[in-house]
């Protein structure tokens, strides 16, 4: 899926939201098969940083680059992003949702929607409308989306929210498999996600001042 010289690098990054400097002078590097865990208090800019990497938020200063991937595509197109909003449509069924994202994102050699449901233990719910799902089931469905289209970089914002212990274990295996395949994960979390050998980047509110 990816070459081993895949590398995500940020240099001297700054973020201003609503006139407030959230962070500045942020630099890090993550290589293929490695994870970076973002920690820190609320408002420290974990979500903003993830959105900046995903190209969903403007980078005011500094730069982010993903090297060693597909030179034709930008970071956004090589990333999966899981944010606070699940991006699910209540009236679409579980399997329809995954089929849509597979068709939209371009499947490549990724898992089939059915296999992705299996991995997230959602297979028995495949034909149910999303409206009937619980919060945890919805979260698992938005994680299953990551399996139906190959993306070397995963940007996860609190991926374990609303998940029970069994589901967190499934998420851990899921992420470990991605790293073993040479992918990169940047995750913001309060919980220990149990990622082997993950580097930690601690954002503090004082960084700005």
């Amino acid at each position, binding site marked *: 899926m990816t070459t081993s010289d895949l590398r995500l690098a940020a240099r001297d990054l700054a973020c201003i939201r609503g006139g407030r400097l959230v962070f500045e002078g942020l630099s890090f590097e993550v290589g293929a098969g490695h994870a970076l865990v973002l920690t820190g208090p609320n408002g420290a800019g974990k979500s903003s940083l993830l959105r900046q990497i995903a190209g969903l938020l403007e980078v005011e200063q500094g730069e982010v680059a993903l090297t060693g991937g597909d030179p034709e595509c930008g970071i956004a197109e090589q990333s999966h992003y899981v944010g606070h909003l699940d991006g699910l449509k209540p009236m679409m069924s579980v399997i329809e949702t995954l089929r849509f994202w597979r068709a939209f994102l371009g499947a490549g050699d990724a898992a089939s929607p059915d296999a992705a449901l299996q991995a997230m233990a*959602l297979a*028995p*719910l495949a034909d149910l409308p999303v409206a009937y799902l619980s919060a945890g089931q919805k979260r698992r469905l938005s994680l299953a989306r990551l399996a139906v289209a190959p993306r070397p970089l995963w940007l996860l914002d609190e991926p374990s929210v609303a998940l029970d212990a069994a589901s967190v274990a499934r998420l851990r295996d899921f992420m470990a498999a991605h790293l073993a395949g040479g992918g990169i994960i940047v995750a913001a979390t309060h919980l220990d996600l149990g990622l082997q050998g993950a580097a930690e980047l601690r954002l503090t509110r004082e960084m700005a001042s």
Partner: protein
Amino acid sequence: MSLTAAQKFHAYANPARFMALSDRLLAPLWALTLLTLGAGLWFALFNSPPDYQQGETVRIMYVHVPSAWLAMLGYSVMALASAVALIFRHPLADVAAKSAAPIGAAFTFLALATGSLWGKPMWGTWWEWDARMTSVLVLFFLYLGYMALWATIEDPLRAARAAAVLALAGAINIPVIRYSVVWWNTLHQPASVFRMDGPTIAPAMLLPLGLMAAGFTLLFFTLHLVRMRAEIMRRRVRNLRLARADEGEA
């Protein structure tokens, strides 16, 4: 999310008896409906005289008048069921109200369309903004609005409450339609059957008209029963699927 005992009663208990009963009723009802409609159509098309003024086009009346009658009956059924649903919270009432709407709307549309077809040779125009036709058109919009409201709210219990209020508010329109003929009497045919001084319609036309009206009414209630059964089954499917979403957690 689990159902309370009361909700379970509402979801299953009473409708179960209704399903058993309606299952037995359906076949004889269909037979009676087809028989009456068949006889009515035979009289209307082959065994009744053409009108001395309107000629053969008068036969449109045998569809038009019963349709218009059912347009109003449908709304009355809907409003009555809505009132029962609001006041007594009977679990079948909102099913009955919801199921009546599309059938009533279809008959309303039929009344408007046949009226339009009748109007062309009679008045030389497809549509005339006279009071009765206008109020039937408004009735059609009331039906559409009611159905749109049901279609917008996913949870049947919540949708039922809102729709019932709407149906009752709209019920004010029914008497307006009924008596608008007396209030304004423009180009449209004067009401011939329900006039104060007794019917002026030829007896040879009264029989087919009566048969068609009876046949249409039977058809309405048969279809209503079919739709109510379908709606109950749809809700069962929904409950089962919701329950499955719960089990999926295990």
